């Protein structure tokens, strides 16, 4: 009756499981969240927690165009971080440290170059290998919603479990390590919100080990594909490290949890 009145909440069965069809929920999910994103722009705040301790925040702005992504981070009014991911090439500049990291993402790095691109904007399920895996996954009731389980086949084979609400909205995505060994990363999605550029979760959390990186999205738009600005080049006096340098690994591990060898023990 409430649904008929237009409150927007789907009916929930009295037995505690979801009502309706899991197939329909998946179809709704794909229709809303697996649309190609040729170009986008957004802004928000990113923060890090390690355990229960807050470890700082940063305002970020980003733009994407086809497979390219550029992120700029500010602490207060200060431009502190530049990052770009063009093709398979990653560049990160920590401006106040006069430090840059650069190099290709290799296939054996986590989910590989395609996987990193997805993890950087995990609300876009349109890449063919992601969409196909969800289409072919098995759907089962999960709490008051649904869970799609399957395997991402990219540089490696990674099992996943995607939890959806009864209405087909993403709630949580757990990606297992290669060959099903533990959990590589868990992504939690906030409630969907209508932005100028479409519907997106209002927040995204990446959990890896004890570290949780959270992005609260303030603005999301789909501009014409011409706003992507390449970053200023690195200063000649900066320290530039390649991604395979142990110091780069240490930094990425410290900041983002990227490149950690271990995985969680939980099943995806």
């Amino acid at each position, binding site marked *: 009756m409430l649904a008929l009145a237009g409150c927007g909440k789907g009916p929930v069965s009295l037995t505690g499981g979801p009502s309706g069809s899991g197939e329909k929920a998946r179809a709704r999910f794909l229709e809303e969240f697996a649309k190609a994103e040729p170009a986008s*722009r957004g*802004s928000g705040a*990113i923060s*890090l927690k*390690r355990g229960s301790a*807050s*470890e*700082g*925040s*940063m*305002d970020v*702005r*980003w*733009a994407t165009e086809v497979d390219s992504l*550029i992120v*700029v981070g*500010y*602490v*207060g*009014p*200060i*431009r*502190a*971080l530049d990052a770009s991911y063009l093709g398979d090439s990653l560049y990160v500049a*920590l*401006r*106040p*440290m*006069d*430090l840059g990291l650069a190099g290709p993402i290799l296939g054996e790095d986590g989910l590989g170059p395609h996987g990193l691109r997805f993890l950087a904007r995990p609300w876009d399920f349109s890449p063919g290998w992601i969409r196909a895996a969800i289409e072919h996954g098995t759907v089962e009731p999960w709490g008051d919603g649904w869970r799609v389980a399957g395997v991402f086949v990219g540089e490696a084979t990674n099992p996943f479990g995607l939890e959806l609400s009864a209405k087909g909205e993403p709630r949580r995505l757990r990606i297992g390590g290669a060959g099903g060994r533990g959990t590589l990363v868990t992504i939690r999605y906030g409630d969907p919100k209508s932005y100028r550029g479409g519907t997106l979760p209002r927040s995204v959390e990446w959990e890896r080990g004890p570290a949780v990186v959270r992005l609260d999205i303030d*603005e999301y*738009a789909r*501009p014409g594909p011409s*706003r*992507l*600005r*390449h*970053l*200023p*080049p690195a*200063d000649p*006096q*900066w*320290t530039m*490290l390649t991604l395979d*340098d*142990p*110091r780069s690994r*240490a*930094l990425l591990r*410290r*900041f*983002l949890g990227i490149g950690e060898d271990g995985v969680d023990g939980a099943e995806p």
Partner: protein
Amino acid sequence: MSARGFAGLVAAGAGLLALALGILPRALLGADAAEEEVRASFRRVLASQEARALMAIERSDPFGGEPSRENGSVWILPGRGLRYRSSASGGQEIVIDRQKELFLLYSPSERTVYRAPYSRAPARLRRLVAEPEQFLRARLDARAEPRSIRGRAHDGYRLRGGSLGDSLPEVSVWMSRDRGTGLPHWVSISSPTDTVWIEFRNWNLASRARPGDLVLSAPPGTKEAPLDPRELLERGGGSGESR
């Protein structure tokens, strides 16, 4: 990114203040009227015992979105130290105190004061504090150039961007003086990707310095943590000073 990561970035990134307050005058040299006017404007600030002002900082979105804005206050004690305090909720506060050999960053949102020795403060800010006269000696190539800010025309000067020596290459710098006081009013710093506008208002040039103005507003008992943005590279042989 960890607290020390973020805090280190903001602290080391305090060079924005240096850009606005210090690097410009460093480029000042020359005999023509434009350069003299710009130099005189900054000299009054740097030759005072203490200069206080309100700052409004606006940064454009490199991707075409709405600009970000922040308001704050700055206290400059030439020869002694500098403090910047954001008025934003949870905004950071920075103190560089040469006499106490301190470089402090207070993050209200983290309820933490990050502490480092003076030598860890950005070198440009240290130069501004320790050798303000040095900032009044370099070539600027100032050229008169009016600009429109929020629909209102302002007389000002384009300065030689290459003299900045900042990490951002191809930087274009422009400043204007307050019509009434002649003190610095607007400073804009433009890179190929974005522009920062800094507005100084309500300059107060005191005849006596108040060292108490270099005290953080953190409540007593606020947790302290070391701040060293280069500690992450220590094993890799990073230099001991922030540039």
